[in-house]
């Protein structure tokens, strides 16, 4: 027995789930005690801040970040060094650093993991950003749904103050930096940088037009640099080990690693950090261990409600910012939801649109009204009441909303519809022309039928039917009246033993 046990547990680097991963942003998560500053210092914590404050000029720090090729991990992929440079070039009596920890994409949880597992690394990175851009105050905007993250950040900030890594005259360099935490209250649009800043100011989190960009006029009207948690998580390592270390990983234009939250119909779920340029096939088949139940892979959804989907034909695309944009997808924050043949793509598109309709802040009409109209058209399709003309209208409206919305939410809201229409047009057509849902998901289009060969006339189904749609005498074949049927599925559940009822 003892021998069997030792052979059963493989080292991490031999396990398929970890073999291809390269943990950089997540390097300390699960390794150190997040509530102990000493453990963070033991793994070179605050060394990068010390190096910068005692030996580098602010412009040197910016140059290192620029040379590393780090791009915003929140989804947009804007070069981080350039962003810092813009803020640094604007002189003002007060500047701010903001950390966007309002992880709103349903299905992504890497920021939560970093904040809970390695909060000091964010504190250090924000101080570095403050030094580079000339800001002396920082705000971390965290989702209220992440109470553990908030608690650990509070502990980290208090410890950093005690050790003199935050506060006045850090490392005797004359540089002052202080951090505050602000809690979000559940509004997806607050992940957009200008909306996030208006929310920190205590208002309804509505975005405002850009320009002026936050680097000129951001939080409280002052120049502000805003980065996502995962972006910041990479910064201390880059400063400490140099730009070359980071630039050596990834593809030509997307350097380093990216964390994906692998979920949905996949055997191994969880956070996966891989070098940019890894293919979707490697993620799904090798790291994720394939699809459960021997089902067929249909598509992977990236970028949440702003993203698109990657169909099976593009499974060998190396994943980086530009490749994903080229196929009409988006890196987004890194949610990667795997879908199998049982998922209806029209239903998924509607799911995301329901989300954006709900979360649209209402400030600009293309997004407020447009997404609602798109949602209605999708409902028509799902109910089998649409015509081919509706499909054309849907596509036209989608492009209009993309071009005319005020902020990132509206500009990307039609993406899930456009991507599914591009790759799964046949499914849309099946709903519209044949009035059929190929994956048997859309309630209005599916039918429950009793197989005459299998039915034993036990009357079980007729007894559970809430609307008395099933008729038949005991020991004789039962029939479902499709006019009366409300498609609740109770009969199919009741017929568990004989399995004479199927959904088509």
């Amino acid at each position, binding site marked *: 027995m003892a021998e069997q046990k030792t052979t059963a547990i493989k080292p991490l680097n031999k396990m398929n789930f970890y073999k291809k991963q390269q943990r950089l942003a997540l390097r300390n998560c699960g390794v150190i005690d997040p509530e102990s500053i000493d453990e963070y210092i033991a793994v070179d914590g605050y060394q990068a801040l010390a190096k910068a404050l005692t030996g580098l000029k602010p412009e040197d720090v910016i140059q290192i970040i620029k040379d590393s090729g780090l791009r915003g991990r929140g989804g947009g992929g804007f070069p981080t060094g350039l962003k810092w440079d813009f803020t640094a070039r604007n002189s003002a009596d007060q500047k701010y650093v903001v950390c966007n920890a309002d*992880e*709103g*994409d*349903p*299905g*992504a*949880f890497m920021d*939560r993991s970093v904040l809970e597992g390695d909060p000091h690394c964010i504190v250090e990175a924000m101080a570095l950003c403050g030094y580079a851009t000339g800001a002396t105050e920082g705000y971390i905007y965290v989702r*209220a*749904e*992440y109470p553990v993250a908030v608690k650990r950040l509070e502990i980290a900030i208090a410890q950093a103050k005690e050790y003199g890594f935050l506060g006045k005259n850090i490392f005797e360099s004359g540089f002052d930096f202080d951090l505050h935490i*602000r*809690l*979000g*209250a*559940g*509004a*997806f649009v607050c992940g957009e940088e200008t909306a996030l800043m208006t*929310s*920190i*100011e*205590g*208002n*309804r*989190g*509505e975005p405002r037009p850009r320009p002026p960009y936050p680097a000129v006029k951001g939080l*409280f009207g002052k120049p502000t640099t805003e980065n996502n948690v995962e972006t910041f998580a990479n910064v201390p390592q880059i400063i400490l080990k140099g730009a070359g270390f980071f630039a050596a990983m990834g593809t030509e234009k997307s350097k380093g690693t990216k964390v994906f*939250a692998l*979920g*949905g*119909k996949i055997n191994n*779920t*969880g956070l996966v950090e891989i070098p940019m340029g890894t293919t979707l096939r490697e993620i799904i088949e090798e790291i994720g261990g394939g699809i459960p139940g021997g089902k067929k892979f249909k598509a992977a*959804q990236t970028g*949440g409600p702003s993203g698109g989907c990657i169909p099976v034909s593009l499974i060998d695309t190396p994943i980086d910012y530009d490749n994903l944009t080229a196929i009409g997808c988006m890196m987004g924050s890194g*949610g990667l*939801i795997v*879908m199998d043949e049982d*998922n209806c793509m029209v239903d*998924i598109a509607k*799911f*995301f649109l329901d*989300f954006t309709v*709900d*979360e649209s*802040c209402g400030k600009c009409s293309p997004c407020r009204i447009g997404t609602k109209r798109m949602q209605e058209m999708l409902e028509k399709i799902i109910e089998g009441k649409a015509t081919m003309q509706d499909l054309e209208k849907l596509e036209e409206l989608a492009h209009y909303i993309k071009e005319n919305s005020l902020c990132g939410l509206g500009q990307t809201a039609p993406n899930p519809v456009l991507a599914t229409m591009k790759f799964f047009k046949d499914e849309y057509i099946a709903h519209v022309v044949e009035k059929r849902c190929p994956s048997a998901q859309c309630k209005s289009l599916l039918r429950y039928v009793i197989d005459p060969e299998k039915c034993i006339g036990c009357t079980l189904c007729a007894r559970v039917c809430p609307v008395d749609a099933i008729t038949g005498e005991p020991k004789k074949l039962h029939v479902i009246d499709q006019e009366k049927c409300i498609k609740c599925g109770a009969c199919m559940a009741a017929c568990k033993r004989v399995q004479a009822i199927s959904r088509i």
Partner: protein
Amino acid sequence: MLKKISKIPFNGTPEQEEQLRAVIEECKSDKSLLMHVMQRAQHIYGYLPFEVQAMIADGMDIPLEKVYGVSTFYAQFALSPKGKYNISVCLGTACYVKGSQEILDKICEKLGIGPDECTKDGIFSIEACRCIGACGLAPVMMINEDVYGNLKPDQIDQILAKYTD
């Protein structure tokens, strides 16, 4: 976001009011702390009835319509009281593709109320929430602070039975 506004009369206690006044006193010098004050007020009262919003507006010297604007903008602020046990079923993407809608439907059917509603006895309320960051356990729901993962519709009866009084 459309919100249900409660018709139940406000019945705050003097202790609650005292706590809220202390919070306002602590924060009123910085108007950007409005959301923070509202979050703490919701913690004290369980929800944000008009009477509480008016107290905050007066105390912080911020127009009531602005306080109301903020309270209706963010999903977290509740204008109706919640049940003793608040059930939030995650409808995030990972949970949705793994069938969380069925879980939600089953709970609604079982309790006879819809999302954002509270049972007559005040024991249960239901809400559909966005991602609680436990996508690896999809489909997931939370009853107050307890998380239930890898759910199947036929487990619901058993789970709800644990919360009786």
